[in-house]
């Protein structure tokens, strides 16, 4: 039997270990079960029509999105009508107008439920089919006054004259509203203002009182460094925006992103937070990010932390606690 010489043996071993490297050194995969964690939202796409004549139908579609706004599915939803006697909705999202009135259509997936879409059913074109509200800002300081304007249209979208609207506030400890639509901010929080006429209600207009901004000071995580402040605020258009201060600065690697999250842990932030922007190339100074453009469901109080995250490795470099 031929034996392997002392010098041949290391060469054989070398072949074995390099083969081992090639076999085991492939890029692996970490699988995150984000569906089980419910880290997604569902939303109904803006419908072609929100008012129907009795007997008409309209097709609604929905999207399942990550918290960062990425569409991950458009199928398999549970459609719900709050008042099927006015309009019913089938499993495919087809709304069937049944009788005069209003109903809210929502869509659900797992624990996630969409914001409702208000559907109005009318008998003819003389009836009010939609009431729209507008204001020049949504955020108020305590004591501020805000005039809200209302307008009405029929099922064809034509303007209708309405002599008098009925105004209501969802919480008069926060905001009161007069018969002319003048809102007065009286307490900290948010309240929904609704106008109605002819048995038809508007979509609610949410006003924020005294909580128009939340700020936090950046601090390093695990001895990484971060400094400056982050402010989450509502702009005049009602959008939620994130602003960093001039002295903002953080440790970073390539792939460093700024997130909104309810945790400072890297994996939790990556899986369930909102990815705002890559700041690797421009990590310092004042920046403004429109959060509503990424996910319109985000409110000032939705997230607690602004997190600086190395996204590829999912390591947190720093964070600002907006509750401080």
């Amino acid at each position, binding site marked *: 039997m031929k034996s392997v010489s*002392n010098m041949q*043996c*290391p060469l054989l*071993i*070398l072949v074995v*270990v*390099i083969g*081992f*490297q090639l076999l*085991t*050194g*492939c*890029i*692996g*995969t*970490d*699988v*995150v*079960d*984000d*569906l*089980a964690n419910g*880290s*997604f939202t569902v939303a109904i796409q803006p419908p072609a029509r929100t008012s129907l004549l009795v007997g008409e139908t309209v097709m609604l579609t929905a999207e*399942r999105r*990550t918290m960062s706004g*990425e569409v*991950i*599915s458009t199928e398999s939803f549970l459609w719900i009508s709050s008042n099927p006697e006015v309009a019913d909705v089938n499993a495919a999202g087809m709304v069937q107008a049944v009788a005069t009135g209003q109903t809210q259509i929502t869509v659900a997936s797992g624990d996630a439920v969409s914001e409702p879409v208000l559907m109005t059913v009318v008998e003819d074109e003389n009836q009010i089919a939609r009431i729209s509200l507008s204001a020049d800002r949504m955020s108020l300081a305590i004591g501020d006054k805000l005039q809200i304007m209302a307008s009405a249209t029929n099922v064809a979208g034509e303007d209708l004259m309405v002599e008098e609207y009925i105004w209501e506030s969802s919480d008069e400890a926060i905001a009161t509203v007069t018969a002319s639509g003048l809102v007065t901010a009286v307490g900290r929080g948010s309240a929904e203002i609704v106008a109605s006429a002819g048995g038809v209600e508007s979509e609610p207009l949410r006003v924020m009182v005294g909580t128009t901004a939340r700020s936090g000071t950046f601090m390093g*995580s*695990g*001895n*990484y*460094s971060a400094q400056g402040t982050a402010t989450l605020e509502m702009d005049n258009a009602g959008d939620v925006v994130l602003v960093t201060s001039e002295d903002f600065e953080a*440790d*970073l*690697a*390539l*792939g460093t992103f700024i997130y909104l999250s309810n945790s400072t*842990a*890297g*994996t939790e932030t*990556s*899986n369930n937070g909102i990815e705002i922007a890559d700041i*690797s*190339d421009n990590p310092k100074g004042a920046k403004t990010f429109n959060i509503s453009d990424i996910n319109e469901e985000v409110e000032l109080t939705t997230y607690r932390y602004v997190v600086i995250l*190395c*996204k*590829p*490795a*999912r*390591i*947190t470099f720093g964070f600002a606690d907006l509750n401080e």
Partner: protein
Amino acid sequence: MIPMKAARTFLVIYLVATFWVSAFAGGGWTQSKRSGYFKLGQNFIIANRYYQPNGEIAEITTISFFTTSAYLEYGFSDRLTGVLYFPFFVRSTLNQVEYTSGRTPIPGDAVNSLGDTNIGLKYGILPDGPVVVAVGLTLGVPLGATAGGETRILQTGDGEFNQLITLEASRSFGSAYATALLGFNNRTQDFSDEFRYGLEIGYTWNGKLLTQLRLSGVESLMNGEAEGGGGNSIFANNTEYLAITPEIAYNIRDNMGVSVNAGFAAFGRKILASPNFGMGLFYTF
């Protein structure tokens, strides 16, 4: 093209294995003239946990290092031994992250390169007697990649020129032995200098089976820039650890044997928090 200024890089954790391969082999004993020791080694670490700079462990995307290396000691004289550690193939990977929801995965990454190489001399200042003592000078040649992969955050070297001075003392107790090591590593490129220490005990069974246990530690003097390397290595500077590494070596012939080991960082900062496994084939001449 990613601008070099923005190319911050990632983790030189596999140094846990590589430094101690070269630092402890032989201990205070030097090779006899024209004799030597050669070892072909393979180390790997796969980790999804990471010691943060404050010592707390955080979950991270899985990262791995696979290092194939050659280690050589050669006696230029009975007192002077040359030492070479050459990691000639280092592969580092960063896992892709996939989501059950179907959202866009975070791509993985990989780099293949040489690793940082150690060239050194060891001199026996007390070569005889119950306790043998040797001093060593090891130069760390930065042959590894400092900004590897598509993301340029993978790293198989730190890009700086180590100058490590060591003092090792060893003593035999029949079939057993013990070695202690102290070292100072002067680092360049704004990296912090390091104090290194270690203790190794071993016992030989029937002249063929050697069991060893090593404690090896690194303490950063924290006297460099936080990011090191001109702001190029946020994860690679100020690394600290205390590693415990049991090893078994078996002589399959008089001059040849195999070894396996597993190193665990009992404490660490900026280092992967998972075991580092190694195996090797050694040959004496």
